[in-house]
């Protein structure tokens, strides 16, 4: 157990150290979603009110949690891309011949990537008042915990892909084809309640919808809120946690298959 902690811990630390030495990555992962949010939110808040929006919320405010998840998605996914090259011609070669189990490698990588994604998204929380959300301390802590769960799940999705594919070009294609739509269809952009029936079903089957719903509700913790078609908080948390566990299992299995040991 002690050895597993040492091994996973060192892989976590390596991710953090590398990230801190690449300033442009730190800034980029945070700034890009921020700019999107400001532009889209500011542009659409006056004229745009999708069907099914909870009362008393304008579109700028509605988009805010969605862009927290976008920060998580971008950072988590980009943190895992290096796995592709790293295992053939880099640091991971040495890890693969070390006495470490494949799940332990994935735990270290996933905790590393999740931490990198989590920190800028927590900084994003500071902007809540600009969105019109008055965060209580309890709400902030609950939201931060929920963000950690989402960050872990998204990192594991990235790892499952990164251990499978052979080139980083493939990664970008998958990112645009699968991951961005998953985010779009998670309730980040429009409420489930107002969507056409067929789309509602797709959104309900999308696991990220539940992480999104849980985060949305934790931000207003303690206030009475209209659910607007969202699953209850307990249900959303349960599914989000189950999703994180499932994605980890998938990533660990993919890593084991890719290395054939």
């Amino acid at each position, binding site marked *: 157990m002690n*050895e597993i902690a*040492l*091994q996973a*811990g*060192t*892989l976590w*630390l*390596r991710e953090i*150290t*590398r990230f801190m*030495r*690449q300033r442009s990555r730190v800034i980029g992962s945070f700034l890009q979603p921020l700019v999107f949010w400001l532009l889209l939110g500011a542009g659409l808040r006056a004229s745009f009110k999708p069907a099914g929006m909870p009362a008393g919320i304008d579109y700028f405010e509605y988009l805010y949690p969605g862009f927290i998840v976008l920060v998580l998605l971008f950072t988590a996914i980009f943190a895992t891309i290096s796995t592709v090259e790293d295992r*053939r*011609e*880099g*640091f*991971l*070669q*040495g*890890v*693969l*011949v*070390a*006495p*470490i*189990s494949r799940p332990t490698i994935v735990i270290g990588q996933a905790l590393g990537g999740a931490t990198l994604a989590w920190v800028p998204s927590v900084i994003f929380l500071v902007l809540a008042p600009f969105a019109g959300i008055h965060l209580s301390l309890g709400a902030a802590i609950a939201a931060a915990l929920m963000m950690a769960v989402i960050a872990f799940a998204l990192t594991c999705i990235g790892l499952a892909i990164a251990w499978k594919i052979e080139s980083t070009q493939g990664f970008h294609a998958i990112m645009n084809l699968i991951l961005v739509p998953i985010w779009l269809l998670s309730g980040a952009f429009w409420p489930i309640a107002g969507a056409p029936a067929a789309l509602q079903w797709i959104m309900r089957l999308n696991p990220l919808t539940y992480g999104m719903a849980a985060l949305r509700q934790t931000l207003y913790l303690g206030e009475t809120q209209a659910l607007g078609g969202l699953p209850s908080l307990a249900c959303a948390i349960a599914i989000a946690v189950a999703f994180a566990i499932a994605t980890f299992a998938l990533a660990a299995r993919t890593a084991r298959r890719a*290395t*054939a*040991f």
Partner: protein
Amino acid sequence: MTASTAIPAHARATNESAEPAVAASDLRFRYGGRTAIDGVSFTIGRGEFFGLLGPNGGGKTTLFKIISTLVPPQDGAARILGFDLRRDTIALRRRIGVVFQHPSVDGKLTVSENLAHHGRLYGIGGARLRQRSAAILERLGLSDRAGDLAETLSGGLKRRVELATALLHNPELLVLDEPSTGLDPAARRDFLNYLAHLRETAGVTIVLTTHYMEEAERCDRIGVLHQGRLVAIAPPAELKARVGGDIVAINSRDPETLRRKIAERMRVDAALVDGVLRVERPRGHDFVRDVVDAFGDEIESVTFGKPTLEDVFVHLTGHRFFAGVGGAREDGDV
């Protein structure tokens, strides 16, 4: 230095000395439709300095990947240091040090950070880690570079850092893939000298792949790989003795005609290898005189010498060692 600190005494007693460092039988590996390793069997003794020699694409990197536990063989079996390669992989990995052709140190980390990460992956932490890192950096003359980012080091120093990480956990077997690629001759000589020293002082078994003849010359024994098969396995001197005496190479505008004439008039079979006539003769200088006397007009140049390992390769396979290397294929990974 002893290699025993990380390994319980009872485990050593059952595995040590009784079994060879590597015992492989009928290993096979294919990439899609292409066979990289085609039924290879060999044994490497404890404390041996063993070289796998072959041109790029001959299968040596695949064999390296199997011995270093990076990929399991698709067929065949291997026991390494007394452990089954497939069943006891984790226990085996604790005892192997691996140096890759492409750097496995992280350029964004300092030299000592790289060592620390490596140590922790092998379950070494705290004071023991600091002590071992300091010792290995000292031994490899890297102490004053400990705080430098690995990406800022020269090629030779980087390779030494690779070696430092591979030796940090006191392995009994060191496996290296083309360790001198990218090193200048002086750095290459230093590196080989250190490996030889390591074998002498710590009894570490060393297995390296190479396509450099001078590197192969340094080995106790070499295995010659050609198209996925082991065509010979012997000490370098013994391999050279298999070539029948001296090597005479003749360049001619029309080598095929000349080859026929030499066969008719002198009763000597010359091999035509990549446009050059090649003759193995016990008394090469006599043959040079005779052939120049007889066909002086048709000969552009004649070279004559003692057989090198390259001649051994031609003798064994009928192919030139570097034939096709200039082609477009980048197959360092095969």
